[in-house]
């Protein structure tokens, strides 16, 4: 069972879109869990952003009984020490992933995307990070959800599904 946890205020439809796409891609049941607060001590005053690793560590202390994988969703910007921002972060082969919607609502040229595109991007980041929880690595195949997207245009180019190799690896991991 997979749980989607909104952290702080997030657009109401986003957790539903993410849950539906997880079920479609990974063929697993998903629950949307109650909203939890964003841990404010994860805010970095110097970088004016939230430390993704810190939030994941905080989520690790919460008991999500019965959920093997948890995907946290927040609207605020986040970073990891080597990157100035990340769309998502996950523990490779672990239980916790986190995605940020902050930069998904802006196109490369600074314009706003249509709502449908914003939801698509949210779902893609969640599917990608969940792949890491299933111990899938970044994939060289550009037509795979596990292909690394460093920029928003890259994210728009990747599909909603795994390539055949990643599908096979997922099968092996589950076995």
């Amino acid at each position, binding site marked *: 069972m997979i749980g989607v946890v909104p952290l702080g205020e997030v657009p109401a439809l986003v957790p539903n879109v993410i849950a539906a796409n997880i079920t479609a891609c990974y063929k697993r049941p998903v629950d949307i869990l109650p909203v939890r607060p964003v841990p404010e001590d994860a805010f970095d005053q110097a970088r004016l952003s939230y430390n993704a690793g810190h939030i994941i560590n905080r989520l690790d202390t919460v008991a999500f009984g019965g959920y093997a994988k948890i995907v946290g969703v927040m609207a605020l910007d986040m970073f990891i020490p080597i*990157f100035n921002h990340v769309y998502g972060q996950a523990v490779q082969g672990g239980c916790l992933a986190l995605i940020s919607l902050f930069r998904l609502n802006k196109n490369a040229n600074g314009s706003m995307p249509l709502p449908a595109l914003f939801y698509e991007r949210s779902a893609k980041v969640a599917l990608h990070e969940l792949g890491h929880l299933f111990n899938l690595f970044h994939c060289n195949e550009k037509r795979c959800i596990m292909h690394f997207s460093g920029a928003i245009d890259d994210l728009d180019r990747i599909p909603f599904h795994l390539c055949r190799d990643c599908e096979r690896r997922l099968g092996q991991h589950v076995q």
Partner: protein
Amino acid sequence: MDDELIVRESLLSWFGKYGHEVDTAASGPEALEKLEAKSFDLLFVDIKMPGMDGLDLLERVKEAYPDTLVVIITAFGSIESAVRAMRSGASDYLLKPFKPDQLALVMERILCQQKITSDYHYVKGCLEQITRFDNIIGQSAPMKRLYAFIPEVAQNDSTVLITGETGTGKELVAKAIHAKSPRAQLPFIAINCGALPDTLMESELFGHRKGAFTGAGHSRKGFLEVVSGGTLFLDEVGDTSAKMQVDLLRVLEDKTIFSVGSNTPVAVDFRLISATRKDLDACIQAGQFREDFFYRINVIRVCLPPLRERKDDIPLLLEHFMEKFSHETTKHVDRVRPDAISLLMSYDWPGNVRELENAVERAVVLSKSRTLAATDFSFLRPTPLCCGQTLKSIQKAHILKVLEEQDWQITRSAKILGINRATLHKIIKRDNLKRRT
């Protein structure tokens, strides 16, 4: 390499998501220690580190491990440090924290650069194999004599006859002679005489004029004309017909040819290297090969030893073929168990090096691990003793084998054979035993 634990952990986690094998070091000396222990394709080095500056580390790395790529990372970028880094051989210079797409681009560029370098080395290796004779593998006494003999033979223009069992590498030796000869920059054309019917061979060698025979829709130059200044290699020359032997004899004597259907002589210039697996002396006795043609093509004789007479070379050959097929099949097979070596050394290799090459290819393709074991060569069957051989022929072959293995040292060979030196001398003279070239 970064003195901040959080940065090391962060990079470790990010590269881990690509499935790369990653290691970290908190200082320059620790990094150098790890580099001493194992090789790394790519290093990310922070400039400000205690003990040793990242740029100093870069210089040390580039000096000792030039193939290792280094990306300099720093939170305090300056033009001076960027210039020094790039001049010292850094592949890139990044400011911390990076944008995610920036690091992805750097990785993509570096992997692309690595592939180009790897392809370059492979192509360069292939080219060297074509133009040199390093691809003839072996360090046994007969092979060492061959290596010394090839440059000598190559320098003059006499015809060469290479004899040896099938799969001993006759064509490789012919190519090596050509590559070392003054004709090296000119064509090397190989024709298998056993594979072509007489009429086709005539047309291939001498060419034909338009309308010379049914189907000759246009004029075509023959190999003897096309080879123009290069080397013509006639493989399996023992299989040429009597008529073709006469035609070739005339060409060798006159250095002119007539195309099929033409009366105009064309001057040709080539060096002839022939090869055969047959015993041409016996063929002459049996009236199957012309004696005059034989003397023409046999000015210099090169006899290639069968693999069973140079088994010391098997491990070297095995290593060479494993590397070749590991590269071709992209399977990482680079080790051999002792039981496999013993099996290969005890086998008689009737198909010689070609058989060994095919056996290693099959073993590499089917191997499920990086180590080849005797079971991977279970398809090899020990050669049964041939009941048709006379005792005398077995004795002669054995004495010759011992002599070759001992580099024709009579005292040592006699001791191994359990006879005295005088007896061995007598047998050598009686059986007309000769050192292979």
